[in-house]
């Protein structure tokens, strides 16, 4: 839009003609009462806050929380084949993968190799979701958990077992259209 804007687009709210005096005092009194009405109405409306530890904020389906590793539901084999593409994609460099060969008597994943070590350092993770995009087998996805604080940095390095396990408490998901 060009500047100055055309006539009628911007409408400045002009103050009343007399700013002070008895008229001004009378008006100020009236406006005060109007403001008090507003605040009282807000009080009657009730609260809009979440009582956090008991009541969690529901997240959207695309919310990027703590990572999850997945297994095939039918065979129970891990989806991760240890290709390290997630580690390569990670801008924060927080994923460490050490791959190992599957053998007939120790079959862990569906592919040729599996991740012997899979660690995510969540104190460095920026939750960008690039690992999820990079993964060719949808083995790693961003979950919905956001409660990851801990007392020790070492506890924030999540191992493969922790990432494969179901989260202890499910984060509530926001209903469709909410």
């Amino acid at each position, binding site marked *: 839009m060009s500047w100055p804007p055309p006539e009628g687009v911007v409408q400045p709210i002009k103050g009343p003609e007399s700013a*002070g005096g008895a008229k001004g005092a009378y008006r100020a009194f009236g406006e005060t009462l109007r403001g008090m009405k*507003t605040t009282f109405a807000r009080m009657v409306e009730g*609260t809009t806050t979440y009582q956090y530890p008991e009541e969690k904020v529901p997240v959207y389906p695309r919310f990027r929380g703590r990572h999850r590793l997945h297994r095939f539901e039918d065979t129970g084999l891990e989806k991760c084949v240890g290709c390290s593409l997630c580690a390569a994609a990670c801008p924060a460099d927080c994923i460490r993968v050490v791959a190992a060969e599957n053998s007939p008597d120790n079959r862990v994943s569906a592919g040729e190799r599996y991740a012997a070590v899979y660690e995510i350092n969540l104190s460095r993770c920026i939750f960008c979701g690039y690992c999820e995009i990079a993964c060719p087998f949808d083995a790693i996805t961003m979950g919905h958990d956001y409660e990851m604080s801990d007392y020790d940095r070492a506890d924030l390095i999540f191992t493969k077992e922790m990432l494969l396990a179901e989260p202890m408490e499910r984060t509530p998901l926001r209903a469709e259209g909410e």
Partner: protein
Amino acid sequence: MIPAVIDYYEPWYVQILKAIVLFAVGLQMVPLVLVAERKILGRMQHRFGPNRVGPFGLVQPLADILKLVTKEQFRPKTSIGWLFALAPIVSILTAVAAFSIIPFGRTQDIFGTKTGLYGVDLSIGPLYLFAFGAIAFYGIMLGGWASGSKYSFLGSMRAAAQLISYEVAQGLALVGVIFTAQTLSLTEIVEAQAGMWYVVPQFAGFIIFLTASFAESNRAPFDLVEADAELVGGYNTEYGGARFASYYFAEYLNVIVISGIVTTIFLGGWLLPFGIHPPGWVDPFVVLGKMCVFIFLFIWIRATLPRLRYDQLMSFGWKILLPLATLNALVTAILVVST
């Protein structure tokens, strides 16, 4: 008007007991007002306010006070030591002293001893109130000055200007009532309202007194003395720990005292309308109930109005409140003399 007839005599132990009870009651009311304020302010902003400590967050002030009193005492290098320590004491002392004149009921017969339900019934009630109001301002001003910090100093200078200008209007607003009641004793002012509460004939005086009282107790929208946003707390910037707690205590006790005074002077104290005469022990609860209305008003106004600019504050005090209060006193005087 019949002069005050002292038909009873309080033994010395009753006086001491009354002092203890008053101090205890005052001390208990402050945390309640504190938590009420935070909860009501929260509700007005669509949130709960404190609700974690104890049932419904009622123990929150206890936690706050414990936190404050266990903190280290310190003062800035530039401060004036003994004044810095004295100022909060002055503040809290005057607040408690002013609390003692609020009458909570008629003279009661307690175990055969006639006892007035108030600290003292002075023949100069409002003057006593203004005297302690004026000393209370020393608490704030000395505190800010002795801190040796520019923000505290600015806050205390504002306090000086503000309290002086609003005390005039506050005093003049009461003159109308004193003319009508023809007494300075607060209990007699209450008794004089048996027919009609003074809020009706003295409505202008009521509004002026209430407004000036907001300024006197340094509450929003006249909290320029503290002005958290611009002066980082004003006069109490350099205070911490128990000294800060006593400033805080004094502020809220002032709110309670002002509510009590307005109740006594304009809302008929322990009197109830429509000829209801409850037994004597109900009186204090009637007074407390009326006080709660005003305490709620204080909180409500704080949630509503933004802080005034300094020049607005001054012109409001001197150009609007003072002439109105004078006019009110003048008209009342003419009416009282002519009838």
